[in-house]
């Protein structure tokens, strides 16, 4: 029951935050710009355009009426129209979001597979060369601008070694002769489902560098968190008992200790996931990845204000949803959070 109460409480809070976030984005869209109507229609607006936008957005009405209209549009899925592509923003987002999500998912997978084991080992062998090495990686990882990392990876793997492609989701040949049938628009899934293995291989190769660049920060975070909690957990008596009773060290570290050390790491990775959604913006520019990041950046360059505001709102909704899911997961993994 306590768990249910906790989950309900978290959900109510999330709804409250969602509403407040919509108010704040409303302010950014309609109140902060010196001329909201002009900002809404893009660069070099004509007088007629501004008048039309003023009428459409209801800018001549009081703020609460404007907000009411804004929420009505939002709830009916109308995020406005892009100044640049002249498409409804929602359909643009549907096209671009899967590319970003695919990148972020693969990046997180890499982070979990590399970061957690490295964290466990450097926590277990505190002070060893491995520990110093991972400390170096994690400090450099949090200090490295992702765009520089992306460029350096390109320089090494494309220019010097000629192993991996420079960017894009698939090569031109594959796009022409083995096109991926869009189902989810995540190429790995779509090509696997349709049995298009040429495209699957090509898409995987194209994913390596951007996903690796994106994974660096989460890896650094996962190492740090896992290491510090591992050091704490390994001092517990039950670990000593397990070691005395002759359980293999591998099982002690990766099963008995990790089970208790993983909660803060999961939390950190949840944050890292959310961070990656925005980190992807920078990575996508470097790797010409046609995702939300490229969409936003083009919007910034083309003064496509409605797109910037809508993407911010959509990403924030994602952010809130992920945090909610994490909190609920945590309530199941670690019952202590319910009381705290």
């Amino acid at each position, binding site marked *: 029951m306590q768990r249910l109460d906790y989950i309900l409480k978290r959900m109510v809070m999330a709804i409250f935050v969602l509403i407040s976030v919509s108010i704040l984005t409303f302010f*950014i869209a309609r109140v902060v710009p010196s001329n909201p109507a002009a900002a809404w229609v893009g660069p070099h607006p004509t007088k007629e355009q501004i008048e039309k936008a003023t009428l459409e957005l209801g800018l001549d009405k009081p703020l609460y009426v404007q907000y009411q209209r804004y929420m009505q549009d939002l709830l009916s899925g109308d995020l406005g129209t892009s100044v640049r592509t002249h498409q409804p923003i929602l359909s643009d987002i549907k096209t671009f979001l899967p590319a970003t999500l695919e990148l972020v998912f693969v990046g997180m997978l890499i982070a979990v597979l590399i970061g957690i084991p490295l964290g466990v080992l450097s926590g277990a062998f505190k002070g060893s060369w491995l520990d110093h090495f991972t400390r170096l990686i994690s400090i450099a990882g949090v200090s490295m601008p992702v765009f520089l990392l992306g460029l350096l990876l390109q320089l090494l793997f494309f220019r010097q070694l000629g192993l991996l492609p420079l960017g894009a989701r698939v090569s031109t040949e594959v796009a022409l002769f083995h096109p991926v049938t869009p189902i989810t628009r995540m190429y790995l899934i779509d090509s696997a489902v349709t049995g298009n293995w040429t495209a699957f291989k090509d898409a995987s190769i194209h994913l390596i560098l951007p996903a690796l660049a994106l994974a660096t920060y989460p890896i650094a975070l996962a190492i740090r968190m896992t290491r510090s909690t591992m050091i704490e957990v390994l001092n517990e008596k039950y670990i000593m008992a397990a070691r005395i009773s002759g359980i293999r060290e591998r099982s002690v570290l990766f099963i008995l200790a990790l089970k208790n050390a993983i909660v803060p790491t999961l939390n950190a990775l949840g944050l890292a996931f959310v961070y990656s959604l925005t980190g992807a913006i920078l990575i996508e520019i470097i790797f010409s990845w046609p995702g939300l990041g490229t969409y936003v950046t083009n919007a910034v360059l083309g003064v496509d204000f409605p797109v910037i505001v809508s993407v*911010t709102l959509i990403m924030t909704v994602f952010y809130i949803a992920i945090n909610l899911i994490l909190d609920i997961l945590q309530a199941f993994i670690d019952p202590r959070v319910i009381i705290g």
Partner: protein
Amino acid sequence: MTTVAPDLEIPIEDIKAGKRVTEYHLMWWAFRRDPLAVLSLVILLGFILGAIFAPNLTPYPEQGRGDPNLLEKFSPPNQGHLLGTDYLGRDVLTRILYGGRSSLAIGFLVVIVAVLIGVPLGAISGYYGGWIDNLVMRITDIFLAFPPLLLAIALASALGASFTNTMIAISFTWWPWYTRLVRAQTLSLRERYFIEAARSIGVPSWKIITSHVLPNVMTPVMVQATMDLGGAILVGAAVSFIGLGVQPPLADWGQMVSIGRIYFIERPWYAGSAGLAIFLVTLAFNLLGDAVRDAADPHTRRVVDVGR
């Protein structure tokens, strides 16, 4: 734990003479003994002084301000141009020195503004509790619900691309962390006897906050601020990489990477040097932050001392 090695630079003489040794003295002693911290400080001072005295240091001050030099487009690093020249033939090292002005300033200003908003709010929220606390905390929840980079982008584009607006936009995403930090500290301070004593002799609340609560939360705030400087510079660089922030012809590191990335594969020195400057400064601030944290904590401070 309290045994002190004899060769320590603990101010034994001062202590014997009955001089007052403050917490900050001890922090400085511990800090000085950390070679990485000192190295970071040197790197940072190098960049800061380079940015301040850029016009005196470079033979090409006019290029630092943005004048093109089209005869020497894209020359690789050489005697006259240690880091090569950019797409308009300007000396890259000069551009980096000048770019440091906005890139470093944004880091400092963001953290300062965030501290100025966040710390008082946190102290008030933690000290008074009740509905004030609830209100302030719910507001921080809202701000923390946004992905920081996107909120900064949205705000900066609503305000218009410029240095000041970028600074304001990033500060807006940053202050809630200080509010939370200071509130948590204040909550535990509030229960301590010296605060209760002050309250019981009728010291007004504002006075307790300003002269008893705030001085006692300054150390964790200082540690956090040092650690955040690197992060703020990174976000500032990211925002100007996207095309908001300082506009050409003025130089800025993020903007230099943004322009230079197009030529990067063939001519890596331009975007590479600017990116490396961001990396070095952020790294130095992070190391410095770690060192300040260790120096501020009496436990790690003592371990550091005896270990040498």
